[in-house]
C-alpha cells in the first residue's frame, strides 16, 4: 500500500488508496452538523422519531458520512482540484457509536485529451464490515518528472 502521493505511472490496477479509520461517531457532532446546515430533518436529531421509524437511533447526515471518504481522496491526490467526477451511494445508515473505515482501489487507468485519468472504486464500511457508502471517483494524476 502506497503512503506518499504517487504519480500516474506508479499506480496500477488494484493499487489501494491509503485507508482512513474514524470514529466512534459522536451524536453531539451530528447535532452540531444539523445546526450548521440548518437541517431540520428530525431523523438526525430526535431519537424517539427515529425509533418510531424502526431505526435504532438517529442517523448521521449523508454529507457527514461522505466527508471522511472524500478525505481519503484529498490526502491521496496531488491537488483536490484533480478530482474530475465522483458518485457516492449511501448504502446503509450510520449511527452514533459506529466506527467507519474509508477505502479505495484503482480499477482503471486511461489517457484522454492529454490528461491521465484514474478511476477508483471507493467505499466506507462500519465495524461489522457492512458497507455504508459505495461509489466511484475519476481523478487526474500527473506523470513523474
Amino acid at each position: 500500500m502506497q503512503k506518499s502521493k504517487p504519480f500516474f505511472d506508479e499506480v496500477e490496477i488494484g493499487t489501494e488508496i491509503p485507508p482512513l479509520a474514524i470514529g466512534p461517531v459522536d451524536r453531539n457532532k451530528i447535532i452540531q452538523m444539523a445546526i450548521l446546515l440548518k437541517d431540520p430533518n428530525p431523523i438526525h436529531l430526535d431519537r424517539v422519531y427515529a425509533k418510531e421509524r424502526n431505526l435504532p437511533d438517529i442517523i448521521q447526515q449523508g454529507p457527514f458520512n461522505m466527508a471522511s471518504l472524500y478525505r481519503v481522496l484529498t490526502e491521496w491526490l496531488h491537488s483536490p482540484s484533480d478530482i474530475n467526477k465522483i458518485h457516492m451511494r449511501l448504502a446503509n445508515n450510520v449511527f452514533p457509536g459506529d466506527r467507519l473505515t474509508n477505502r479505495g482501489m484503482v480499477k482503471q487507468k486511461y489517457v484522454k485529451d492529454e490528461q491521465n485519468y484514474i478511476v477508483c472504486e471507493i467505499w466506507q464500511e462500519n465495524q461489522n464490515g457492512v458497507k455504508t457508502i459505495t461509489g466511484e471517483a475519476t481523478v487526474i494524476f500527473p506523470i513523474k518528472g
Partner: protein
Amino acid sequence: MILDRKRLIGNKFPIIIFKVLKDEVDDFLKIVEEPSIDGKICEGKEIPLSFYPIVGLSFLKAIDLGRELMADWAKDTIMHGEQGFEHYRPLLIGETLRIEGEITDVYEKKGKRPFDVITIESIGKDGKGTKVFLSRSVILIFK
C-alpha cells in the same frame, strides 16, 4: 390520498444564490475533524472536497419542501440516497454561485416500506456564467 410525485419530473427549482462562507467551511471542517490543507481557510482558497455535498444539497434549505417535493419534514421520512459531482473547475471560498436545480427523475421503489426515489440535477455557475460543477442528488421519501 396516494401521492404521485412523478408529475414533479421536469420541475425546476427557484434559482439559489449560494455564497461559500469562510466561517461555514471552517466550522464544517472542525465538526468532521478534517485538517485544512496548509492549515489555512481563507478567501480565494479552494474549498475542501468534503464540502461539495453541502453545496450540492443547498437546494434543500432553499426550497419549499411541500411545494417542490410534496413532502413535510415532520411527517415524512426523508433521507439522502446518493450524491455525485462532475467538476469543471475548483470552487473557491468567498465565491458566490448561482445554482439551477431540476427534478430529472422520480420512481417508486417497492419494499418493506415503499419510497419515492427523486433525482435532482443542479448546475452551479459563477458570476460570469461559467459552469463550476454539475451535482446529482438522490433523495428518498418514504411512503
